[in-house]
């Protein structure tokens, strides 16, 4: 059974189409990065997965219908929407008590163990904690839940770089194993580069790119081409071209490595490079069609 299975997932707010027929299948043990420009439909997709919004089409999360079975689903699914959702009036100990009270798979001792590594005290109120500490607290709560799917929506928004790095380090070292699945939506592409196993780009409600990291690393190559060889390089139909000091950087999809090595220095593109190429091309095509 797939963890997430969607067919023809659609959601419109009035005339605005947020999700335009998404097909999606995510297997257990993957870490999926969902990447897209603002307003691309990332949050709407996650909200549908979490049973927070109604949708058209088929969607099964761990075999359940999220809209009608949200409370049951949440025994196996956790999510961190963003750092600002912990209630400011709550004490740390109250949050631990509450989650322990309502969640059958919450291990309070484990949460306390995670908190012991931070400077968060059990008697503090959330409003007294810094933004970074609130994230640590939320992560400690979530990591102590023995869930099968963890959904993160811009989890590190507004955090400084230390907390951001720590956030993903904790997730990988103290939480992730091959029985769990993580979906993370963000536009901080660089910070999930070495975390995710799969990448999906979403643009204007559609999935425009869906690859595993191995595929991305083997299929896509970037070449730094000197001006005199640009013509030859362009003949190989690059996906994207950009200017840099001393030449052009061309991004190729599925072109032979040897062939490209003759044109200049080869390197593996970052997710961000591929993202710009794919989304840029999409927008270019859309503009072309409009004209």
């Amino acid at each position, binding site marked *: 059974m797939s963890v997430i299975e969607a067919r023809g997932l659609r959601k419109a707010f009035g005339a605005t189409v947020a999700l335009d027929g998404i097909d999606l299948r995510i297997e257990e043990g993957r870490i999926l990065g969902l990447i897209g420009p603002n307003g691309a439909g990332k949050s709407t997709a996650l*909200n549908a997965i979490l049973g*927070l919004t109604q949708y058209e089409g088929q969607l099964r999360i761990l075999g359940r219908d999220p809209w009608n079975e949200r409370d049951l689903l949440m025994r196996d699914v956790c999510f961190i929407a963003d750092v600002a959702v912990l209630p400011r009036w709550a004490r740390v100990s109250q949050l631990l008590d509450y989650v322990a009270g*309502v969640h059958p798979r919450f291990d309070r001792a484990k949460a306390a163990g995670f908190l012991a590594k931070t400077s968060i005290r059990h008697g503090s109120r959330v409003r007294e904690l810094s933004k970074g500490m609130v994230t640590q607290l939320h992560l400690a709560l979530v990591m102590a839940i023995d869930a099968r799917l963890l959904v993160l929506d811009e989890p590190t928004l507004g955090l400084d770089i230390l907390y951001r790095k720590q956030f993903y380090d904790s997730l990988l070292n103290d939480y992730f194993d091959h029985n769990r699945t993580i979906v993370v939506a963000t536009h901080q592409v660089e910070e999930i580069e070495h975390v995710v196993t799969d990448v999906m780009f979403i643009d204007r409600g559609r999935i425009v790119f869906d690859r595993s990291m191995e595929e991305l690393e083997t299929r896509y190559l970037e070449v730094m081409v000197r001006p005199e060889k640009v013509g030859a390089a362009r003949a190989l139909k690059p996906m994207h071209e950009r200017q840099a000091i001393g030449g052009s950087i061309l991004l190729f999809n599925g072109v032979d490595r040897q062939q490209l090595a003759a044109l200049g220095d080869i390197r593996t593109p970052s997710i961000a490079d591929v993202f710009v190429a794919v989304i840029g091309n999409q927008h270019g095509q859309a503009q072309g069609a409009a004209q």
Partner: protein
Amino acid sequence: MNIQSNAMTESSIRPQGMPAAISAARAMYWSIRRELWENRSIYLVPLAVAGVALFGFCLSSFVGIWEEPLRLNPAQPQAPYELAAGLMMLTGIVVSVFYCLDALYGERRDRSILLWKSLPVSDLITVLAKASIPLFVLPLIVFTVTLATQWIMLLLSSAVVLASGMSVGELWRNLSIIPMWLLLLYHFVTAHVLWPYPVYCWLLLVSGWARRAVFLWAALPVLVIGGFERMTFHTLHFAEIVGGHLIGNAPVMDMAPGSMGLDPLTTHVTVGRFISSPGLWIGLALSAVFLAAAVRLRRNQEPI
């Protein structure tokens, strides 16, 4: 067979042996506790008002600054007890109104609804937990605090009566405290819990719906319908009905003019009339409708 094999897979996946589910009662219990953590006014305000009432009572007993009816009078001792009870009832109404106006609005405003919805607690349980505050929790607190206040008042006045050489027996006989408390309990449950409940449920519903100015939205129908009725028929029945429900103007007892109904000698309860009044049943039916709508609404609500 199926159940057994499910149970086996469950336990093989979860070697820790944690239960797979939490009972609705337990989810309800923790949801109510979280309401009490978030809204400390539910118990702090009644306690504070009781403190003020006791302070005022001390002034009147020991210093005697108040007018005749409130001064300690062993022959007619009810007045200060009625006043304290009335004050506590009023406190209950005010706290309920403020609680309900914020109950489903606050969690959307501070975005914490996203945390609550990430936990395995249904919208039904959450809304019922919130609806149980003005139905059970707050009444229990207000009633207990009222009894405690009156008990302390009785001890204080007994001390004063003793010190002045009068008979304590007369005070206790005339006050007849146990019948008074039974009467208070009856009055409280009927007129201040069941009768105003539709108003509280309406406030809960609006607090789950409005994006701002919950109080104005909640009052709008009363203003519009009341205004329309006033202009068209020159009457104010709708506003009177709503207001009467809120302040507990219910057909629960006959009492002597000018009394507040705590004297068992002059007050006669009219349970039959209360039970058979359409206002009670229409009100409770409306409460159910409002709560059902609030549950549906919360399912779809996002932070504001």
